[in-house]
């Protein structure tokens, strides 16, 4: 894998490292790995300590796709998407989303060749991320795909019982999809 270098000046302009010295360099891969570490941790914390604890264990509140109407908790996937939408509004030079080979919402099926290849790869081996490059529109992207695993009972109960889920036999620890991070390449 070619490790492309992103000049600190570019990152500084994007607001990542403020007034960092010009000799500092961060590779696309390292950047994506760092972003994913934060995303995965927050996502796991919300799923286990909020949704699974309050819905499945304590049974005090439910999580629902229609959380406003149902006065419920947002689903972990929605929590993730709302964060991604807020990042998009800030016009940061990266984007991320949750995709799956078995999504509840068909819009989240892989679309690009890299997504297809990456989701297949992390479904087969969820210990290693998949990295690739692709051109979408007129922009070339560094694309990293990380396995998204079932970390709590809430994940598998909801997906296995959802009327729109194409797969109904997920088990704890299995890959349910992938986190796709894209960084535009200079």
């Amino acid at each position, binding site marked *: 894998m070619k490790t492309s270098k992103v000049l600190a000046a570019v990152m500084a302009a994007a607001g990542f490292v403020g007034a960092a010295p010009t000799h500092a360099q961060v590779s696309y891969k390292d950047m994506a790995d760092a972003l994913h570490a934060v995303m995965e941790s927050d996502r796991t914390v919300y799923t286990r300590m909020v949704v699974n604890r309050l819905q499945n264990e304590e049974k005090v509140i439910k999580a629902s*796709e*229609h959380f*406003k*109407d149902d006065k419920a908790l947002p689903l972990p996937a929605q929590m993730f998407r709302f964060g*991604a*939408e807020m990042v*998009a*509004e800030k016009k940061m030079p990266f*984007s991320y*989303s949750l995709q799956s080979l078995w999504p509840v919402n*068909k819009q989240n099926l892989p*679309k*690009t060749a890299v*997504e297809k290849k990456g989701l297949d790869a992390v479904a087969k081996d969820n210990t290693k991320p998949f990295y690739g490059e692709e051109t*979408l*529109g007129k*922009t070339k*992207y560094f694309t990293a795909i990380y396995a998204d695993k079932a970390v709590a009972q809430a994940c598998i109960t909801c997906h296995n019982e959802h*009327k729109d889920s194409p797969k109904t036999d997920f088990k704890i620890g299995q890959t349910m999809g992938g986190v*796709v991070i*894209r960084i*535009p390449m200079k």
Partner: protein
Amino acid sequence: MANPAGRKIYWILWGVLSMGVGGYLTAGLLMKSAAGNPWLQPARTMFLPGKTTHGHYQIELACESCHANPFGGRDALQESCERCHGQELKDAVDKHPRSKFTDPRNAELAEKLDATMCVTCHVEHRPEITLTMGVTLAGDFCAHCHKDIAEDRPSHKGMAFNTCNSAGCHKFHDNRALYEDFLAKHLNEPAHHPRQQIPARNFREVAAAWPGYPVDRFPLKPQTAADAPADLMQSREAVADWLATAHATGGVNCSGCHKGEKDGAEAWVKRPDHKVCATCHESETKGWLTGKHGMRLAEGLAPMTPGRARQPMHAEALDKELSCTSCHGAHRFDTKKAAVEACVGCHRDRHTEAYERSSHYTLWKKELAGEAPAGSGVSCASCHLPREEHRAPGTDAKRVLVQHNQNDNLRPNEKMIRPVCMSCHGLGYSIDALADAKLTLENFAGKPGAHVKSLDMVAQRLKELEEKRSKKSGSKASADERR
């Protein structure tokens, strides 16, 4: 042949006239005050590139409202759109937000339909291509991304490309009353609910628990004596009117509205404007300034008058300037009068004139006569200025307040289903009634002649999924038995 001196005079005259006309047009175009200046308005009008849509014609001469930065391109226009419409899209849980189209994985779709910008679909001043909802795209825009929908939803096979948006099933932005799970939750509801009542307003209760409420100025205690200076107290009738209001019982005395912030002549404001009402009624005023009644004031223009409207209005009302008191009436602030009489006093269209023939009006008369409970009558305001639940600022208390932007739920009219129709009617009946254009025009005097099949389709889909699930669990059980 004219002599050279005579010709010179013509040239000078031509030059002066040209400069005058040029100066007049330039002033009309560039001076911000031109929109409100009756002498310069004709000059501005000449620069309008085409008839403005029903949503913006009231402010069409305030060019700067939309073209705040004439050289800013689409981004600057987008900022202007969002200034007025951004919040309502957020409230509507917009199904096609900007972020959907900035996602690189949708780059291919965004190339076909760049919905990151409002002007991709809603171009102003183009009446020849403007469809309903101010859409200026060809009617097949859904198909750009969803043409394969029948693969996922076989029930949609063979449906015409323009029916997604026009058959009462899906809307591009606001699907709060139309999404599948909501339909599923409200299957088989009766046309009329046993309890038919709109929510009661609760400003008095919420104000008491509201940290930001100006209690020093409005002490929340009943007032029995008017505190206006004797020399300014011109009408006993005004005092009697005030004493009968919630203002008097809620602690709002004359000075609460009329006392100005400055000393001297301006210490007593004879005709307080909407900004004074906003001291306590901020949300209502904000809504009113966003709607067609108040948007001219919001853009610094002279108030809206029925004479400036495109809809049919009563001749005697044409010059009436709209303000809070034009509907509510100063001192009396009779909300019942504001809910019907104020509307029909100006509006003269078929829908308004049919109101008196509707069962909604019969219910309203019963409520007014005390023969039916409060909130069971249906006035113009019940539907067009609905009572909605909001969080009161700074508290956890929920406040039922009147949405004073009467356009908020009007287009598409499905926006009316949840906050209005479903207070009394089942979802299926509501969808059918609003899809019947003739019935709407006749102010719902009758039963829906149209039928939207969306609920039937959801019921069928749920049945099929249930059958599939039972079959699957049945075959799993027999497999277990065989083992």
